[in-house]
């Protein structure tokens, strides 16, 4: 036999996994746990509140978390490479501020959107240049730049607000797709998630991301343009912050320097809850997407029961830890069982 198995299989390899083991493998998978949690949320709240399992409501509540979900998409890339960006919320503020400025000076809807995206991109580029050009860790750069970006909008806008946007600008954050009940924001997220998922799992760029995340040095020695990738990630993060800023600004129809406060931490929460390793090199877009809806509907359900926001943050905190702890404990159990079985052979 001259096929691959010749050298690959060896006498001491343990026989193929049994069905039972495969089921255990599946059960301890992160995505599986997330799906189970998601279903648990749906089942529980459908019983607890008559308003939960309502098509309009389920669609409508996505308005609450789509901007954060969109922020989470490129954040997967950034975190995958072992970096982190805590300035996205501030980029949103800067971008929203620029849109308000443009609108106040008579820009059309198209112009406003383009300016919002460009400013986001530009801010991301600034982050990227400092991280890769000056070789400063991303967390240090974005720690500083987050005050800077928001500070710029505050310095100019002071205690004022931009409140006048063209009528048609409202569509991005408030509109629905055609006559359906599907919010435009949701559709946009689905499209962006599909694109980003494809890039992550099916393209060379994605493969290189995993390489950089696992070993920056080895990736560099393999000809992967490490710095270009990290730069590109941060720039992309800026661009997506621009997109999120367009949506949020359109949704609330006004801009103040404190817009989107706390969005960065929420986006990062989604990414880590989705199973992306904070040290880089491990992750999956599906996990993050499930995490988005899990957290979104959990909050929605708890809101319907009029639970205090403080109960919600406590629950989110435990969920975050539990989502890692449970598979970890199951995994420990799994390896223990496996070894035990081997010993019996």
């Amino acid at each position, binding site marked *: 036999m001259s096929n691959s198995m010749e050298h690959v299989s*060896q006498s001491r390899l343990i026989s193929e996994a049994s069905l039972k083991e495969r089921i255990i493998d599946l059960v301890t998978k992160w995505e599986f746990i997330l799906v189970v949690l998601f279903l648990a949320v749906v089942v529980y709240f459908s019983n607890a509140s008559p308003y939960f399992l309502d098509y309009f409501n389920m669609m409508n509540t996505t308005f609450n978390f789509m901007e954060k979900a969109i922020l989470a998409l490129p954040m997967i890339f950034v975190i995958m490479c072992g970096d982190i960006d805590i300035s996205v919320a501030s980029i949103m503020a800067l971008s929203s501020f620029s849109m308000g400025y443009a609108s106040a000076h008579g820009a059309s809807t198209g112009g406003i959107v383009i300016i919002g995206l460009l400013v986001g991109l530009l801010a991301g580029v600034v982050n990227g240049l400092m991280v890769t050009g000056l070789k400063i860790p991303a967390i240090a750069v974005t720690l500083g730049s987050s005050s800077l970006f928001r500070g710029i909008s505050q310095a100019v806008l002071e205690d004022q607000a931009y409140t006048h946007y063209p009528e048609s600008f409202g569509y991005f954050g408030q509109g629905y797709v055609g006559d359906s009940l599907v919010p435009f924001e949701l559709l946009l997220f689905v499209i962006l998630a599909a694109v980003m998922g494809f890039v992550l799992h099916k393209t060379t760029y994605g493969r290189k991301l995993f390489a950089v995340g696992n*070993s920056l040095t080895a990736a560099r020695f*393999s000809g992967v343009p490490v710095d270009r990738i990290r730069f590109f990630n941060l720039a992309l993060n800026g661009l997506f912050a621009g997109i999120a800023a367009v949506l949020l600004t359109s949704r609330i129809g006004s801009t103040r320097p404190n817009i989107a406060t706390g969005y960065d931490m929420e986006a990062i929460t989604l990414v880590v809850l989705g199973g992306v390793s904070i040290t880089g*090199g491990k992750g999956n877009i599906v996990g993050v997407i499930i995490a988005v809806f899990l957290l979104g509907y959990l909050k929605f359900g708890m809101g319907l029961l009029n639970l205090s926001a403080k109960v919600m943050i406590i629950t989110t905190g435990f969920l975050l830890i539990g989502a890692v702890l449970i598979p970890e404990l199951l995994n420990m159990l799994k390896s223990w069982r496996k070894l035990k079985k081997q010993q019996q052979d």
Partner: protein
Amino acid sequence: MKDIVLQLKDIAKYFPGIKALDKVDFTIRTGEVHALIGENGAGKSTLVKIMTGVYQPTRGSIFRNGKSVQFKTSHDAQEAGVVAIHQEASMFSELTVTENIFMGHHLKKASGMLDWKAMTRHTADLLNKLELDISPDTLIKNLGTAQRHMVEIAKALSVDAEVVIMDEPTSALSLKEVEELYKIVRQLKNEGKAIVFISHKFDEIFEICDYFTVFRDGQYIGEGEVAKSSIDEIVKMMVGRSLNQMYPKKEAKIGETILDVEGLSLPGYFSDVSFNLHKGEILGFFGLVGAGRSEVMRTIFGIDKKSAGKITLAGEVLETTNPGLAMKKGIAYVPEDRQEQGAILEMSLSHNITLPQINDLSDFGVLNSKREKNVTEEFGNKMEIKAANWKVNANTLSGGNQQKVVLAKWLATNPQILILDEPTKGIDVATKAAVHKFISEMAGEGLAVIMVSSELPEILGMSDRIVIMHEGKVTSLMNRDEADSDKVILAATGHGQGDRHE
């Protein structure tokens, strides 16, 4: 018969999906240097880790001076007088030499405070003993590979142990340090200590070992006295068959110049390095560790940025370069540190092997798993990588097999110029022969090869010409027929001025 100090009985170690060790017996005696021999992946390092409490055996028992013991952590092993120099780099690069040596067993004053003065003094003594000219306060990150390895040796010696295990201690050392190490090993032996010595180099085994044990595929095969055996016999036990030729250098037709390096400099590392390379040629680079060979290669490959000099590739001057560009121009570089630079440990073998040419294996940036599979299988099999399948992560492989993955990944790019930095470091004899045969064949097909190596027989046996470096400068250039070990070593130590040929 000497006293038995440490005995392992019926040891087994299972990892999920693989039996690294099964039914292994191993006995160590005082005043003896005991060679542990086996192919890559035979389970040698795993056994070391079991003996030092890093791993817990799945089954079996350990006896220390006849008493059954359990080493829950390496601390327990150390208390029982068992220490090891591990195969994987295990240094704290941001800490000083002193701290690296005493981590885990810092010296304390009567008051309970750490006694830095005493530790520094001890370190200075140890460094003296090893004839290492570095200050105890130097940070490890400022040391070269060989110096780091020597510090590891010093670390093992800092504990007053009865059993000292050395897992491929010489793989990153050059002649001078190896001599130093032999001296130490002999001294320890005379002091009545037991030494376990793991190496793939038979000259070393025959030079300092008294006794040997052979493993194959995680199982005990046999043992014997070194003096009463031959290389052939041992190789047969190891591989299951005999090997004939170690350095199968084929005569190759030397073609036109493909690479011309002139006055290349990188301050702090090397200066004014010039040489050229022809198609079909194997150009050996020899020097003591720290001579700056690796940096020259890294600069050519574009990892480090040159400060002066000219690199001409196939008639075209390369102004600035980076690894991506160098690869496009047909240069492949197999780095010396496979853990850090070579393999991506948490990625699958397949993804590792295809990474350098992932762009070419894809359709407009979209991955093509079929093509990836083909390349993986072709080169993985060529290098005889032993693994459960191509989807396992590289970190589950033995050290030698990891090196094969790194080789496979670069050979798969079909380079015009192949730069190998210590290509057979940590590789067993059988594979080494295969790698050599392979390099030779590739050169025969017109590939230009640069081979950096600290192993003199390898350099002498494989090279068409030899460049010798000393402290960042090229001191000599010899043709195959005029080179001999004395002349090469002399040039490498900065003495004798060999003739310079162009």
